[in-house]
Structure formats: structure tokens, C-alpha cells
């Protein structure tokens, strides 16, 4: 069984840097959940984790295992791909739900549902 300490120093430093960077990005993204004041603004926070955080940590993982095991198969790419594809679905639905609710509660800072031209005449 291999250990992380088996990595050559350059790779170790790179892996650690990527990992830390990714984790930090993710942390900031989650911090956004805390700090941003409005739901629609908070909607952007998770995407930092799903994009920046995921890419960086996956890169760290790819690099780590590529060096450790000498293989060049990047199955972490699957994670990047699927996270990128699936997270937006939830966010879209959530955004629409919020939109619907705000309209229903007649909040003013939300755009109305677009009316077709026919309707307006």
C-alpha cells in the first residue's frame, strides 16, 4: 500500500498546494452562503465549490495518483464533469422556486413573469 509521503517533493508540494487552494476556495464559497444577504446572491455561492473547489481538488487527486501509481487515467474528470452538469439543475429549480414565491408574495424587487406580446394587447 502506498502512502502520501512516498510522493516526490515537487509533486507533494503541488498536490498540497492544489488541495489547500481548492479547500480554501470551497471554504470561501461556503462563506458566501453566510455572508451574502439575499437568496439570489447566495445562489452563486455553491458554484464556487462545484467549479473552483472541485477542479482544484480533483487536479490534486489526479496528480497525486498519477505520480504514486504511475497511471494516467483521470477518472476524477468524471467528478468534475458530473458536478458541473448536475449542480445547475438544483440551482435552477431552487432559483425558480424562489422566484415563484417572491412573485406570489408580490415582492417588488423581483421581475414579473414575462408576458407574451399577445397578452399585453
Amino acid at each position, binding site marked *: 500500500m502506498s502512502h502520501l509521503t512516498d510522493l516526490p517533493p515537487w509533486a*507533494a508540494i503541488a498536490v498540497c*498546494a492544489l488541495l489547500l487552494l*481548492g479547500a*480554501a476556495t470551497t471554504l470561501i464559497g461556503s462563506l458566501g452562503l453566510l455572508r451574502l444577504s439575499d437568496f439570489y446572491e*447566495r445562489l452563486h455561492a455553491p458554484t464556487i465549490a462545484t467549479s473552483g473547489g472541485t477542479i482544484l481538488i480533483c487536479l490534486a487527486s489526479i496528480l497525486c495518483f498519477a505520480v504514486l501509481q504511475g497511471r494516467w487515467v483521470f477518472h476524477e474528470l468524471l467528478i468534475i464533469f458530473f458536478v458541473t452538469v448536475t449542480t445547475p439543475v*438544483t440551482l435552477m429549480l431552487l432559483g425558480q422556486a424562489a422566484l415563484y414565491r417572491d412573485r406570489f408574495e408580490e415582492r417588488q424587487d423581483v421581475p414579473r413573469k414575462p408576458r407574451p406580446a399577445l397578452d399585453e394587447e
Partner: protein
Amino acid sequence: MIELAIIWSVLLAQSMLALAMAFALYRIARGPRAQDRILGLDTLYVNAMLLLLSFGIRTANTVYFETALIIAVIGFASSIALAKFLMRGEVIE
């Protein structure tokens, strides 16, 4: 020296991710609205996935990868169900 750096940086990264989870939890617990909670859960899932990946790096073991992959591929199912419930009052129509 380098070993120590590796250990500490992995530890730091994991702690950051766990902290990120705590932030997401805050949003879940506080709301104020249901969509905020679901957003928090979605974030929690992604953070958990990254934590798992980092754990894979830490142990240099690939067997933990599948759990992360499952979160990536179908983890969104529960948040979609929640979001749809919010939107339509019903998960499956």
C-alpha cells in the same frame, strides 16, 4: 520536514472543508426560507464530496473515490426532490 508539511496541509485542507460544511449547516439551520436550507444541503453535499476526495489523497487510497463519484452523479437527486417539492408542493406529479 516535507512529510510534516504534507500532513499539516492535508489536515488544514480537511479542516477547511469541514468548516465549509459547518457554514453550509448554518444556512440549513437558519434558513430563513426553505430554499436557503436546500441550497445549504446542496453545498453540504459538494463539500462532503470534496472532503472525501481529500481523504483519498490523504490515505493515498482510491477506494474512497466511488463514494465521491456517487455524490457527483446522483447526489443531486435529493436536493432536486426538495427543490421540486418547494416549487410544486409535490415531488412526483
